[in-house]
């Protein structure tokens, strides 16, 4: 039977020849990721074993990754306590893929996983974070789950009651115009699908514009598929996937890949011409409230934010640094930059991007989830307007329900920083 990418992955993870949409499976998990909410996972994990007489050991400590990123360094004694509890658990259980608060190997989970070579094509990856969808960029079936679900995975090594999701096929042709980036593609698609248009479905990306896209760009588009409700996004692995794994993630040896069948059955098919795209802006207070930039250009911005698991990678910082080099962030506008990982931060330092950004007036913060979810610096005042390369603009997202968040690409964010208003990079920022 012809199968999509995710159907093939699930069949393999269940030792079945084939699976079809709606089948209920209990696939093996190859990688189980948590961040600070690991504290709740530990609590629920211990709850499972309570009064059973069984030893509460995780099924495979090598397949669990824990990355501190949401509140680093700890913003409160409560968080510090949670982090300490997780550190103790990691030590007792022998969990090796642990990234503590460090300037050499720390970072945001959705950058640490790919850059460390933890994710391989064809794997089943679960994470207690909704943006776990990111890892479909490497051809894995990766999706977000809650803490209790993760506790069950830690105990069993399987995820119970997974229904095989239907798949939406998105084919992207053409070549991206200058200053139109993968972020604009995914914002456009979310606008088309709506915030629930892909609920319980997978989005599989195809086409020449995806083939030419770097893994960094693929991480952007898969990351935000959840904003259309998708269970996951996925890009069938290709030469670029293998290059990334070997050259950037340090994966040694042969990497197995798989492709969807040519006659696989899709829920629906969408085609997009990248060449016809313009910069997109997601307006308050939902991510699917997407408009072409000309409809919101000129909007005064109080705070620009570049970073996050969506757009805090080296190419994002490079785009911003090139635009801001020798220029200044507008008076009355604040600019915050937080790289997606320590490795990226160091690369950006060596490339001179950090100096370019700081000399322009940007505040470069440590790696982590930072201002994106409003828990750790960069909070907005009542009435403030932020323009961010992050992934969500829900009411209250940046720490204040009486503020507004607009979402955009790093090119739009950098140009807008100079003028202090939302500005189209294709027009030289004017």
């Amino acid at each position: 039977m012809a199968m999509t990418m995710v159907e093939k992955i699930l069949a393999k993870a269940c030792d079945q020849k084939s699976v079809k949409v709606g089948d209920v499976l209990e696939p093996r998990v190859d990688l189980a990721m948590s961040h600070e909410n690991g504290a709740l996972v530990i609590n629920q994990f211990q709850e499972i074993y309570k009064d059973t007489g069984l030893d509460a050991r995780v099924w495979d400590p090598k397949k669990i990754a824990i990355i501190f990123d949401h509140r680093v360094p700890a913003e409160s004694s409560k968080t510090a306590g949670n982090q300490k509890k997780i550190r103790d658990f990691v030590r007792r259980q022998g969990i090796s893929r642990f990234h503590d608060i460090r300037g050499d190997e720390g970072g945001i989970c959705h950058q640490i996983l790919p850059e460390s070579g933890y994710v391989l094509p064809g794997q089943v990856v679960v994470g207690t974070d909704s943006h776990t969808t990111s890892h479909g960029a490497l051809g894995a079936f990766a999706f977000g789950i809650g803490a209790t679900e993760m506790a069950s995975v830690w105990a069993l090594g399987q995820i119970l009651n997974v229904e095989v999701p239907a798949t939406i096929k998105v084919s992207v042709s053409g070549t991206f115009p200058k200053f139109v980036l993968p972020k604009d593609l995914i914002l456009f698609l979310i606008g088309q699908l709506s915030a629930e248009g892909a609920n319980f479905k997978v989005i599989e990306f195809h086409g020449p514009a995806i083939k030419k896209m770097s893994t960094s760009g693929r991480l952007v588009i898969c990351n935000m598929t959840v904003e259309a409700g998708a269970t996951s996004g996925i890009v069938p692995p290709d030469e670029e996937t293998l290059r990334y794994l070997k050259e950037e993630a340090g994966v040694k040896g042969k990497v197995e890949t798989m492709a969807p069948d040519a006659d696989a059955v899709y829920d629906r098919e969408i085609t997009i011409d990248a060449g016809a795209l313009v910069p997109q802006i997601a307006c308050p207070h939902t991510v699917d409230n997407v408009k072409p930039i000309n409809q919101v250009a000129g909007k005064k911005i109080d705070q620009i934010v570049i970073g996050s698991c969506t757009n805090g990678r080296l190419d994002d910082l490079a785009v911003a640094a090139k635009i801001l080099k020798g220029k200044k962030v507008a008076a009355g506008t604040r600019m915050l930059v937080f790289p997606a990982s320590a490795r990226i931060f160091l690369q950006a330092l060596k490339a001179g991007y950090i100096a370019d950004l700081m000399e322009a007036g940007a505040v470069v913060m440590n790696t982590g989830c930072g201002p994106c979810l409003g828990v750790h610096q960069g909070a907005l005042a009542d009435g403030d307007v932020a323009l961010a390369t992050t992934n969500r603009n829900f009411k209250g997202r940046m720490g204040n329900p009486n503020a507004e968040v607009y979402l955009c690409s790093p090119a739009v964010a950098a140009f807008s920083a100079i003028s202090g208003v939302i500005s189209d990079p294709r027009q030289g920022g004017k």
Partner: protein
Amino acid sequence: MAKVVFKLGDDISTDIIYPGRFMATVLPSETPQYAFADNADFNAKVRKKEFAPGSVIVAGKNFGCGSSREQAASCLKGPDFVVVARNFARIFLQNSINLGLKMVICPDIEANEADELEIGAERVVNKSSGKSFAVTPLPKARQAIIDAGGLIPFTRKRMEEGKKNQLG
């Protein structure tokens, strides 16, 4: 009969249900104090335990979209709310099932605050308006977890079966 105590629109995100700045609080026994924290009136009533168990929150499409934070489900489970929505975002739906938060998928629901609802397995009847609305049953696989009393007992059962198999 259950009373509607809160009426909400479409796309209510987990940032609205449980704002990110309270995420360091994780224990289900402690999360209800931050339920809808940015809505001062509603939150104060939750804190003062003014709502009878089984009180209903009615919402539109895509309830619980966004972050996977389980606090968004546990903070409503504590006060024993029932959520009736046109549909739910995937992770929130699964978290609710796993924790035993009662929720009802009712694609055409129409109700206002103070309305009295009769919630059955197949229909929700709005006693105040006299209208009745069909319920979409949960997929069979998910119902199995609810029947087991949540994912923790369901997982425990699975481990015991595994142990038996090993011994057998």
